[in-house]
């Protein structure tokens, strides 16, 4: 499951490179998101909304605001989840085996090197520069530990929508809007959160 987390981080960071904008260190990408989880046996999708901040090389802050406040912070040092200031989960990077590999993948994608990503997924590209699509399928679909059946990405200047299909048919859909790229360091608040994920 941590794989998905890290993987999304990679995706989020990677796709601006595919679009016209390229992320680099020293910049911060901020925006709003809607996450919908379509789960079998549930009457409605589990829907959450909030804001995110992505600082290349430093990490990702994922603040869910609706239906209630959960903050997830991912950094090279690990992952932390907080609810109302209480830590509910902490995974140090040492317990995330793919961490270093996916950071390589992320770093590669940022600079236009797709090899690491394409080693793991078959990538089908579609659309033009202003409205592109990507369809990713795992190269080793028979691997029982592979938790993803397919990933669909749609974007323009930034990534607009990501849909992840699980082997059992459950789907997660992430929609992004109001994305803004600024060449500035993270705010003090963001920096504190990113640092908190580094404590072991």
């Amino acid at each position, binding site marked *: *499951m*941590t794989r*998905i*987390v890290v993987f*999304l981080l990679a995706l989020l960071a990677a796709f601006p490179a595919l679009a016209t904008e390229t992320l680099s260190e020293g910049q911060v990408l901020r925006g709003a998101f809607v*996450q919908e*989880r379509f*789960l*079998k*046996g*549930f*009457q*409605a*999708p*589990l829907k*959450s909304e909030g804001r995110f901040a992505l600082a290349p090389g430093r990490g990702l802050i*994922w603040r*869910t605001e609706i*239906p*209630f406040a*959960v903050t*997830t912070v*991912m950094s090279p040092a690990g992952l932390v*989840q907080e*609810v*109302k200031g*209480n830590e*509910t*989960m902490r995974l140090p990077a*040492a*317990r*995330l*085996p*793919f961490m*270093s*590999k996916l950071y390589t993948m992320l770093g590669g994608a940022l600079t236009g090197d797709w090899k690491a990503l394409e080693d793991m997924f078959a990538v089908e590209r579609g659309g033009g520069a202003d409205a592109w699509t990507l369809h990713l399928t795992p190269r080793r679909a028979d*691997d*029982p*530990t592979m938790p993803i059946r397919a990933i669909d990405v749609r974007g323009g200047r930034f990534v607009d929508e990501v849909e992840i299909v699980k082997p*059992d048919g*459950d789907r*997660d859909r992430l929609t992004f809007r109001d994305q803004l790229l600024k060449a500035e360091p993270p705010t003090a608040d963001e920096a504190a959160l990113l640092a908190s994920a580094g404590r072991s």
Partner: protein
Amino acid sequence: MRRLGALLWLALVLLASGYLALRLHDGLGFRTDLLALLPREEQDPVLQRANDAVTKALGRRVLALVGHADRETARKAATTLGDALLATGQVERIGEGIDVDRLKRLGALYFPHRQSLLSDGDRALLAAGKGEEVATRALSQAFGFAGLVDAGLLRNDPFLLLPSFLTNLPFPLSRLTPDEGMLSVTENGTTWVLVSAVLAGEPFELDLQDRLVGAFDAAVRDMPGVTVKRLGAVFFAHAGSKTAITEASTLGTLSLVGTILLVGLAFRRPGPLLHNLLALGVGMTVGLSGSLLLFGELHVAALLFGSSLIGVAVDYSLHYSASLFDPLSGSPSDRLRHVLPGIALGLVTTLIGYAALMLAPFPGLRQIAAFSIIGLVGAFLTVVLWLPSLDRARRLTHGAWMLRAAAGLWSFWEARRWRAVRLVLVLGCALAGAVGLARLSADDDVRRLQAVSAELKHEQDEIQRLIGATTAAQFLLVQAADDEAALRRQEDLAATLAGLKAKGSIAGYQMPAAFVPSARTQRENRTLVATALDGPLLAAQRASLGLPPADPNDKGPNKAPEGVLTLDDALAADSVPFLRELVLGPGLHVVALQGLSDPDAVRAAVAGTAGVRLVDPTADFSALLAKYRHRALLLTGLAGLLMLPVLIWRYGWRGGLWALLPPGAALILAPAVVGLMGQDFTFFHAMALVLILSIGVDYAVFCAESGVEEQPVTMLAVWLATLTTLLSFGMLTFSAVPAVHSFGVTMLVGISIAFLFAPLAARGTRHNETTNDARLL
């Protein structure tokens, strides 16, 4: 009469040779573990069983870390290594058994009981009335970033109690994480992949060692650029037995060649050399086949010590052959008659010494004693029954200078002009003895007795650092009337253990109760879940998640059963890794400890808990060694006492005591020299004393039996006997195995002193009037 005896002896020797040839043809099984030389502890069979089970489980583990900068290369190399080990047929299984299949079974075992299983953290939260926090955590995981939760689980376990329990199970190997089915850890850009195996047999079987370590080394050779670190008793045992076997052949060859050269140079005739070799060969053959017949197998150490028998067995034939130098010597039969009392008495006293060795309940030492007794009797019978008939040698005349030189020692103890030197020597010895004994301290740590390869030790430390704490040889043994009581005992102990972990005395622990809580705790958990979660929060939780309200009449397969998960269920499913090794029997459980840094703190912390104790196999063995070190000293004293009546019968009170003086001096001075050298006195030093007494008394008897005219010839025989003994036992000083080295040093010093003082034994015997009149000082 002798003819008949000689023929009977020939028949027996042929029989023994035939048996030995047969056994050699079938392939000999040698044992190599030093611990097999030690006695089995008989006082507490439960403890012994637990000790055996845990030590065996640990001993059979093989761990290797395969490292490379490239993850794929490391993974491929790890797979290759695992396959190579499996292909030897000496390995039961590869891997920790934490594969996807097993994890699925683990989930299937726990899932029906999810309401009875709580992680420690959740239990504390619920008990404190903080059910809200548990509910919020589940919601945050359902709604939070990237949705970490499986839908099916969320429907059946809306508070996500089972994932919390599973992720808090105390699996060892803390720094390793599963990475596509392989446990690995990444450090400084190198990916280390774990290859673990469980041996099908004992790590001390030579054949298994050779095949497994051979396959391991071959596989590693074929992986250029890949770093492999290894850990496991089998590697240490293999290195140890390689050393022992190389040493046994090197030292054995040196000893044999040295002895042949010595005898050849002394007699300058092939006859005496062949006689000595014959006596030796027969002694070794009957000794080896006799002990194989008695014990079925032999320990490598018995072979190593036993091969030193060369030095003792040759004494009798040397004594016989040396009589060739006697100007008064007659026919071979006359010469035999002449030396017979000396060598017979020597044999009897030596056998008394070895018989004392037999009294010690050490399987390995019994083998050594049996080997030696049979071998010595064989050598003796060969001298008495065969040599006179085979002997065609004439009196030797070239030995004048040797006789003069040999007799020098005797005159040193007699001549008036040496009095001052004697005085200095005796006082010096007394002083050295007093100082040395005062400085002597004992050390019984069994770990210091085995030669441990520094390279392997380094790799072991590296592995422990990379994968985190490894399981200690020490463990807690929990004993109770039944499983339920034992599980409760562990739960009561959990707070103590958590405290020890917080203090850093241990890095972690696994107890069966962490995998299967007691029925008492499971019932408490159900009540807690019902009152603190389901009652107040379930309806709201399901609504938040968008699930339909729970159906109170649901009796579907996902409804938790009323019963509790039992240890027997968990064991039968064989889905919980490590659990099998922790449950030795009903009510007899092991709490494994990781990264134990302070055994005393753990011992003290559990001291007050009934039915729980820290078992430390190494310390137990060390304590046992201490006990038997004392016993070996007692055996030496006993052997001396048993020899005394024989000596008194032959030489009278005064003479008997004089005859015991040289070996007695050696017994006191040898440990003193060990003390002066700064070595600690161990069990193996003590065992050497038994042999010093046996061999030393031989020299004393040879001297005491000698008439004045024969003194030079006797002394020559004793010189040769001493040199051959030093060539064999003394050689052990150069062994890399500390235990053997200790034995060798003691022998070297003790035998030299027994030889130096040997002429004193002749005082007090009736036929040595002149000697009696000489003054010692």
